[in-house]
């Protein structure tokens, strides 16, 4: 009797077999995974500390400390520092994405995800999509702090919105680098360590805080090719000048290239992970 039932259930199961997840499946699974990540954020609100504290603290701190020295006054420095901190906070938030993903992957539930007939990219893409919320919060708070301090961007509302979107998109794109690090590093601490090593030179050796023209030649050349500089230039063009320039095009292209390289790498090493 039970052998008969077994045969029937096997037959039905085999009839339903699909060769691979469709694009629609992939999108739906990614959204489900994003839902899981959002639930997790909701239950562990301390995950938002970095994207709430850092924009407030760094914006005010850098503006008051360096404003007079670099731009002759705090208000004059705001167009530089606000856009710089925008890029910096979204990079820091990216690093947290990678670290948290690594922590998450060590949990038993990821074994189940790997054993399910789902798209291989969904367990990675879901939490990264949810983290867009974090980049959004960071960018919004940085801009708000600026407004409170007297920042009046020349790009107007449209420029600010466009800049905000670019910052969030850049954050999401660059987080694929850290997601990949998360899949290859030995531990969450390692991701954090490597992340710091990447993040500090990239943010400080850019034009985020100081114009590269004041730097030695060799450093200026590095700053000019630093992808963070590209993004910051684009943000400044949008927010401060309200213009869609070539810089914006390069920044968007650069971000797309990062995703095109690191998303497949991350999925590959995640699938192979023991």
């Amino acid at each position, binding site marked *: 009797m039970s052998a008969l*039932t*077994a045969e029937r259930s096997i037959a039905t199961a085999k009839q339903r077999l699909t060769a691979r997840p469709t694009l629609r499946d992939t999108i739906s699974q990614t959204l489900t995974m994003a839902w899981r990540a959002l*639930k997790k954020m909701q239950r562990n609100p301390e995950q938002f500390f970095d994207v709430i504290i850092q924009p407030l603290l760094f914006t005010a701190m850098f503006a008051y400390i360096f404003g007079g020295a670099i731009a002759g006054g705090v208000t004059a420095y705001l167009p530089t520092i606000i856009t710089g901190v925008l890029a910096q906070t979204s990079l820091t938030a990216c690093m947290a994405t990678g670290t948290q993903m690594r922590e998450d992957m060590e949990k038993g539930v990821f074994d189940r995800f790997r054993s399910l007939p789902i798209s291989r990219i969904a367990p990675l893409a879901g939490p990264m999509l949810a983290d867009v919320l974090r980049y959004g919060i960071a960018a919004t708070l940085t801009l708000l702090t600026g407004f409170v301090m007297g920042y009046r961007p020349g790009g107007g509302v449209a420029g600010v919105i466009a800049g905000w979107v670019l910052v969030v998109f850049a954050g999401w794109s660059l987080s694929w680098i850290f997601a990949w690090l998360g899949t290859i590093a030995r531990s969450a601490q390692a991701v954090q360590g490597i992340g710091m090593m990447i993040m500090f030179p990239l943010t400080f050796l850019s034009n985020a805080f100081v114009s590269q023209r004041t730097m030695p030649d060799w450093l200026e050349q590095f700053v000019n090719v630093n992808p963070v500089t590209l993004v910051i230039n684009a943000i400044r063009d949008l927010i401060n000048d309200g213009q869609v320039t070539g810089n914006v095009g390069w920044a968007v292209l650069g971000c797309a290239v990062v995703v095109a390289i690191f998303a497949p790498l991350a999925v590959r090493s995640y699938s192979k992970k023991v």
Partner: protein
Amino acid sequence: MTTSDLAVDATGLVKRFGSFTAVAGVDLAIKPGEVFGVLGPNGAGKTTTLSMLATLLPIDDGRASIFGVDVASAPHQIRQLVGVTGQYASVDENLTGAENLWLFARLHGRSSRQAKALADDLLGRFGLTEAAGKQIKDYSGGMRRRLDLGASLISSPPLIFLDEPTTGLDPRTRSQMWDTIRELVANGSTILLTTQYLDEADQLADRIAVIDRGLKVAEGTPEQLKTGVGASTLQLRLTDKSLVEDAALLVKRIAGVAPVLTPEAGGLNVPLPDANKAAEVLIALREADLSITSAAVQQPTLDEVFLALTGHASESADETEEVRR
């Protein structure tokens, strides 16, 4: 598609981690509808074997198919055929029981509403309705395992892997888990179960493969394994304790072996190469007017089987397993 396909057909499975060979050529042939137990101590290669079959680890050598589908070349299909319950509950700590099941049902392509209904149904079946709204981190070990098992059943997979389903559970929760597993069997699921508990394999499995150090050392029904190892024992207790010596002489004449005596209790343990000899011994005792209060034929336990097959006891590594996480 042929119905004669084996549920699991594996030959010469090998897995190496660097210079360490975790699985050194294991063959498995599991029939549809049966409960197959893989028994072995911690580190024997049970979980590694299961992980290879579940596409969680690449197969280094050998080949495996599940219901006729090749594991190495069609991993996505295999994942649709197999439900995996991990050694440690593989559910999300931060989510509630209901949310976990909803999540997995959504991932299996159910609509939000269907997923909710299915989650409610499974929570009811596993006695977790009251805990539905609690986060998993507040669940007891037994509740986690039940939820984990529930999550594996969402897609009604024809083959279910249970990796040490009761490791670390207390005896009462363990027997509840066994009942749940027996229900699955009654519903026609094929089950591949790993365990380091001999009584668990004995209780649940139709057939058992004993694995030690990455190699299969024996295979058969629990009875075959026990018979293969040696004699069963006839345990007798006399009404009149003072007659133990007389009884012993008689038994020795009939059975051909000297019984082991426990004179204080009036007991005799008679090793029997052939269980049929038991009747002859009992008849002879009655003819000699030696009355008994109890008689039982005891088969060797799987513990003894294990010791005989592997040359070391089974309990060795229980503790290290617990502390691994």
